[in-house]
C-alpha cells in the first residue's frame, strides 16, 4: 500500500492549551511529501505537544491534514489507521514479546477477528522486509526487552514501517545512541523517506546537519524560523533563541553556530 500515495502534512493554526497554559500557540507548517523535516527548539517549545496533537493524544484546535484527511478530532487509533505513526522519547516496544511478535502486532491493525483467533504461522512478508530494513533479522526471536537501546529504537521504526505508516513522527530517535548507531539511524531514515514523509524531533545538531532536508524551529509554542539547515542557521532570531536567551546563555551547545 505504501508507495501508492505519497502525502504531505499540512498543519494550520494549531493551538493546544493545558489549564490556561498555551503549549502550542498557532503553529502552521507544511511538510511536503517525502521530506525529512526536523523540528527543533529549546525545551518547552512545544515540539512534542505538537506531535501529540497531530496523533490525537491531546486536544487541539485548528486543522491538521495529511493528504486529504483531517486528523484533528479523531481518536488515536483512527488517526493511526490513516497512516500516521509515531515513536516516543522513551522506548515503548513490548518488552515481554519477541521482536517478531512486536512487528507482527504492528502489522496487524487491520486484521479481522478470524485471523486474530488463529496462531501466527511463519513470517508475514512485510514483517520479513522490515526485519531486514532495521537489521534485526538475526534477533527476530529474542525478547524485545533484551535488545540494546539503539536496537529498540530501530524496532520502533520497524513497527512504523509494517504499520504502513506513510507519515513517521519520531521523537528524539537518536537520543542516547552511539555514533555508529546514529549513522545507521540516519541511513535508515533516508531509506524509509523514499516513499514516506518523515518528521523528526531532535536535539542533536550534528545529526540534524547531516540528515535534515528541511528544518522548522519552534519557540514558545510558535514557529520561529523555517527553511533549509543553512537558512535556519543563518537566521539571527534562531541564534538569539539558542544563544542569547538569558536562561540558556552559555549553556546552549547547540552547534548551530558551527
Amino acid at each position, binding site marked *: *500500500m*505504501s*508507495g501508492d500515495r505519497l502525502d504531505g502534512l499540512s498543519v494550520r493554526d494549531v493551538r493546544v492549551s*493545558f489549564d490556561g497554559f498555551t503549549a502550542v500557540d498557532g503553529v502552521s507548517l507544511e511538510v511536503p511529501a517525502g521530506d525529512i523535516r526536523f523540528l527543533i527548539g529549546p525545551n518547552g517549545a512545544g515540539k512534542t505537544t505538537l506531535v501529540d496533537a497531530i496523533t490525537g*493524544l491531546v486536544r487541539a484546535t485548528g486543522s491538521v491534514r495529511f493528504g486529504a484527511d483531517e486528523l484533528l478530532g479523531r*481518536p*488515536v*487509533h483512527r488517526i493511526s*489507521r490513516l497512516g500516521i*505513526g509515531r515513536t*516516543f522519547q*522513551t*522506548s*515503548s*516496544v*513490548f*518488552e*515481554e*514479546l*519477541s521482536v*517478531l*511478535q512486536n512487528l507482527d*502486532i*504492528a*502489522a*496487524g*491493525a487491520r*486484521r479481522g*477477528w478470524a485471523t*486474530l*483467533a*488463529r*496462531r*501466527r*504461522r*511463519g*513470517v508475514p512478508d*512485510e514483517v520479513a*522486509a522490515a526485519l*531486514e*530494513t*532495521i*537489521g*534485526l*533479522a*538475526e534477533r527476530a526471536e*529474542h*525478547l524485545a526487552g*533484551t535488545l540494546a537501546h539503539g536496537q529498540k529504537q*530501530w524496532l520502533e521504526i520497524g513497527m512504523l514501517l*509494517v*504499520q*504502513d505508516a506513510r507519515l513517521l513522527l519520531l521523537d528524539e530517535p537518536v537520543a542516547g545512541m552511539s555514533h555508529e548507531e546514529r*549513522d*545507521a*539511524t540516519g*541511513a*535508515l531514515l533516508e531509506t524509509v523517506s*523514499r*516513499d514516506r514523509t518523515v518528521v523528526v524531533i531532535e536535539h542533536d545538531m550534528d545529526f540534524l546537519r547531516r540528515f535534515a532536508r528541511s528544518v522548522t524551529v519552534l519557540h514558545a509554542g510558535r514557529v520561529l524560523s523555517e527553511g533549509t539547515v543553512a537558512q535556519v542557521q543563518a537566521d539571527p532570531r534562531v541564534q538569539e533563541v539558542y544563544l542569547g536567551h538569558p536562561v540558556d546563555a552559555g549553556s546552549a551547545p547547540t552547534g548551530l553556530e558551527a
Partner: protein
Amino acid sequence: MTAVTPAPPSTAVDPAPVSAVPPSRPGGRPRLRTAAGFAFGAALLFAVAPLVLSDFRLSLLAKYLCVAMVAVGIGIAWGRGGMLTLGQGVFFGLGGYAMAMHLKLADAGPAGMPDFMQLYGQLDELPLWWRPFASPWFALPATVLLPMAVAFGLGSLVFRRRVRGAYFAILSQALAAAMVILLIGQQGTTGGTNGLTDIKGFFGYDLDDPVNQRMVYFIIAGTLLALLALARQLIHSRYGELLVAVRDGEERVRFLGYDPASVKLVAYVVAAGMAGLAGALFVPAVGIISPALIGIVPSIEFVIGVAVGGRATLLGPVLGAVAVAWARTALSERFPGTWTYLQGLLFVVVVAFLPGGLASLWALARRRDGSAAPARRGWSPLARRRAARRTEVPAA
C-alpha cells in the same frame, strides 16, 4: 497485505550479515508435548483420581476443579490482559444461580414452586423472571451467556473510559458486593442469605447417589480440560500476543491502530463466561449456591489461587487454585480459624517475593539449565523487573 519499502540493498544498519528469518515455531514437537500434557492431565483426572480418592474426597476435588475453571479465566484476564478482576464471584454466581434456578424448578415439578418461595415468599405464583429458567434450553446457555452479557455491558462502559489498574479492581469488587446485597435483599425470590439449597436432582439423576456424583465429577473434569484447551489456543493466537501488548503498553497499542478497549473486552468476557460455567457446574457438585459463595471474599480467594500458581501461565492458575482450595480444606480441618491468616500471608509472600507465582520457579529452574529458548512467553521475576523499569508512554 502491505508492501513495505522495496528492501533497500544495504542500509548499513547492522554490520552483521542478515540471514533468513528463522521459522517462528519449530514445528510438530511442541504440539506433541501439548498433546502428551493433555493426555497426562486427562489420565490423572479420569483414571487416577477416581481410583485413589474416596467419594467424599472426589466430590471435594470436583469443587476445587470448579474454582480452577474460574482461575483459567482470571489467568487470561489478569495474567495476560492485566485486568485485576476482583469480582469474578459475580459471574460465578450468575452461572450458579441460573443453573440452581433450573434445578430447583425441575425438582419442584411442572406445576410446583421452589420450596423456599412457599416458606417465606408469600408468592402465589412463580415470579416472571424465574419462568424461562424452567426450560433447560434457556437455563443452560444462560449459565454462560448471562455472565458474558453482563461482562460485555460493564466492560464496554469501563474500558472505553480507560478505567484500569486499581480503579478497575475496586469497581469489579464493588460489583460483587452489590450483587450479594441484591440477592440478600430479595429473599422471597432468591432465597436470600441461604441461597438456593437442597438441590436434589440433576437432569433426572439423583444427586444423592454416589454414582451420579461421580458422573458430575467427570463432567467437571472434562469441562476443565476443554477450557484449558480453549485458553491455550487463545494465549498462543495472535490475539493472545496482542493482549499481552495491551497489558504492557495500552497507549502504544493505540498508536498502532488498535482499540485496546475491544481487545480487553474480549478477554474479560471470556473470563466471565468461564466463571459462569464454573458456577453452573459447582451447583450439582455441591448442591447449593448462596451469596456467601460468590461475594467479595470468595472473589478474592479466586484471585489468590491464580497469584500463587502463576497468573500469566496456562497451568499455573489451575494448579494454584486447586492447591489453595485443598490447603484451605486440609488446614481448616486441623486448625480452624487460622486459615484466613495463612491465606493472607501466602498472598503477601507471593506478591512480594514471587510475583510470577510458583510457575516462575519452574521457569527459573529451566533458565538455569540453559535450555531456555531466547523468546519466552513466561512471566518471571526477572522479566517483571524489566517491565517495571519500562517507562510509560507520556500522557500529554
